[in-house]
């Protein structure tokens, strides 16, 4: 067993249990880093956050923050929420309804001398752009303002770690965009680990330095948002990060000693990692951005472009982007690609249009093959 280095700054968590919610998670978050826990509802994201805050006790595991051990099942250590220095922003905000905005913030300042609390509380409310609203009760504030009070209250404890449980889910789209900008700004000034729970991949990509994909309480893959979304560890992660183009293939030897993929009677140029043997069954994926419309006036560049022909079976325009499903002969599921709407309009692409596309070899990612059912059923 490898010990977590005691003096290592930041938050380290490893928890495991079978019931009531299965957990098998490991996360690390450095000071100044924002880690997003991403997964569908019921994947255990909030439970992990509650484990960190001391509101849920896992059967096994260890939670260390800086030099403090907050939880160690083997050693019988389980600090109360009061004895852990966490700032938690609840999904529902959980503000104290009978206290003013300032009262909510100063309620978390029992560690400071009473004379300082008022000034510090006003400072924090100023920092979240709520100056002038100190005397309002939560019910007299808008959703966005309530969220800001919750953030100020979480910071009021001078926490060692900031925990955000889907903090943007209860506000409208316009407010959310504004709060995103504010949080990005705020997190630059905070030198503590921030753990953000969200089910929104774009939110995670926008706000987090790294993201951890959770499924049924298990952390499947942790990496930068770009890494996880373009290089998912396996087909299950690919499906969880909404990579739609996931297919099965076999590793084959191509001409010239290079290896590629044999896929539905086609040969694909791809970078196949050395741990896959020729003949292995593998899965591969490609982000929609890696599927390019082939220009009719240009010849195929040999080696790095994998031409595929198909027919548009679905066409959805959302603002500046148009998403297309391409039906390809012999494929059980369509190939998805995204175009700028003006290109789709210029080329008169609609359902039924025959298209020639290329699969960019550098965007094509090879993963271990796994039956989709294996990942979804224990």
């Amino acid at each position, binding site marked *: 067993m490898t010990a977590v280095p005691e003096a290592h700054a930041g938050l380290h968590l490893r928890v495991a249990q079978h019931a009531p919610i299965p957990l098998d998670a490991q996360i690390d978050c450095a000071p100044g880093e924002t880690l997003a826990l991403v997964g569908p509802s019921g994947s255990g994201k909030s439970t992990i956050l509650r484990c960190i805050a001391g509101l849920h006790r896992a059967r096994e595991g260890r939670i260390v923050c800086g030099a403090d051990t907050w939880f160690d099942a083997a050693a019988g250590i389980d600090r109360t929420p*009061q004895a852990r220095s966490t700032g938690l922003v*609840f999904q529902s905000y959980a503000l104290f309804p009978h206290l003013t905005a300032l009262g909510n913030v100063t*309620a978390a300042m*029992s*560690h400071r001398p009473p004379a300082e609390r008022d000034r510090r509380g006003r400072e924090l409310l100023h920092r979240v752009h709520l100056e002038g609203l100190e005397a309002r*009760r939560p*019910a007299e504030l808008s959703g966005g303002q309530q969220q800001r009070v919750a953030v100020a*209250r979480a910071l009021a404890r001078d926490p060692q770690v900031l925990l955000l449980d889907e903090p943007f889910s209860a506000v409208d789209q316009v407010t959310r965009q504004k709060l995103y900008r504010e949080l990005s700004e705020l997190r630059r000034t905070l030198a503590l680990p921030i753990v953000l729970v969200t089910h929104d991949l774009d939110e995670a990509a926008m706000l987090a330095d790294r993201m951890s994909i959770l499924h049924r309480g298990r952390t499947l893959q942790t990496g930068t948002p770009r890494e996880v979304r373009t290089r998912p560890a396996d087909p299950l992660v690919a499906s969880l990060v909404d990579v739609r183009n996931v297919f099965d293939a076999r590793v084959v030897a191509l001409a010239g000693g290079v290896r590629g993929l044999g896929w539905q009677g086609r040969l694909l140029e791809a970078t196949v990692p050395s741990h896959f043997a020729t003949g292995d069954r593998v899965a591969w994926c490609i982000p929609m951005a890696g599927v390019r419309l082939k220009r009719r006036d240009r010849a195929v560049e040999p080696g790095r472009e994998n031409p595929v022909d198909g027919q548009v079976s679905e066409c959805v325009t959302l603002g500046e982007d148009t998403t297309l499903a391409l039906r390809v002969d012999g494929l059980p599921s369509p190939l998805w690609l995204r175009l700028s709407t003006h290109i789709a309009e210029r080329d008169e692409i609609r359902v039924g249009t025959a298209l020639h596309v290329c699969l960019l070899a550098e965007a094509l990612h090879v993963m271990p093959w796994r039956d989709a059912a294996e990942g979804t059923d224990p």
Partner: protein
Amino acid sequence: MDGTALVLSLQLAAATVVLLLPVGIVVARARAWRRFTGRRWVEAALALPLVLPPTVLGFYLLVAFGAGSPLGQAFEALTGSTLAFSFAGLLVASLVVNLPFAIQPMQRAFEAIPDDVRAAAACCGMSPWRIFTKIELPLAWSGVLSAMVLTFAHTLGEFGVVLMVGGSIPGETKTISIAIYDRMQAFDASGAATMAAVLLACSLVAIAIAYSTSRPRGRAAA
């Protein structure tokens, strides 16, 4: 107007409220948030005084207070007097009878506090006692006040159990409701009317207070 009976009733009601307040808060919080085996049976037992005929309840209390019961013997050994037909016995009976009136409004009030709010208070570093005094009690205050008012009014008006357990000893166990009954038995309608009016006024004020405090706190002030 029997002043002694009125004072006795007020003393009984006040003592019942004072003693039931902490008991009620502890039981109501436990019932609102704790899950334990046999919870349903405990709930049923606590609600029993609501449905049991007062004479039946009074009968069992008298049996429990009697010189043959452990409770009666213990009380007599400690104080030298009997529980039955005494103010102390009346108070014990009153506590039992009022349990559901005290607990239920408090329980509803504590149940209405979201779990996350209490968890947030713990995450803010507040001690359990501070969470209770600064968060729970202010939020559940209307329910606690309702419970106190209802208990007070209900004690003033209790008749059946009081008659069974206390008899009608002037200055010791003769409460205002029993005095009203006595006056009517003696064909003193005007004496009964005055006392009835006093009880009516008390009850009306109690209900008005209970209703006016049932508006949850934290809503925007009108």
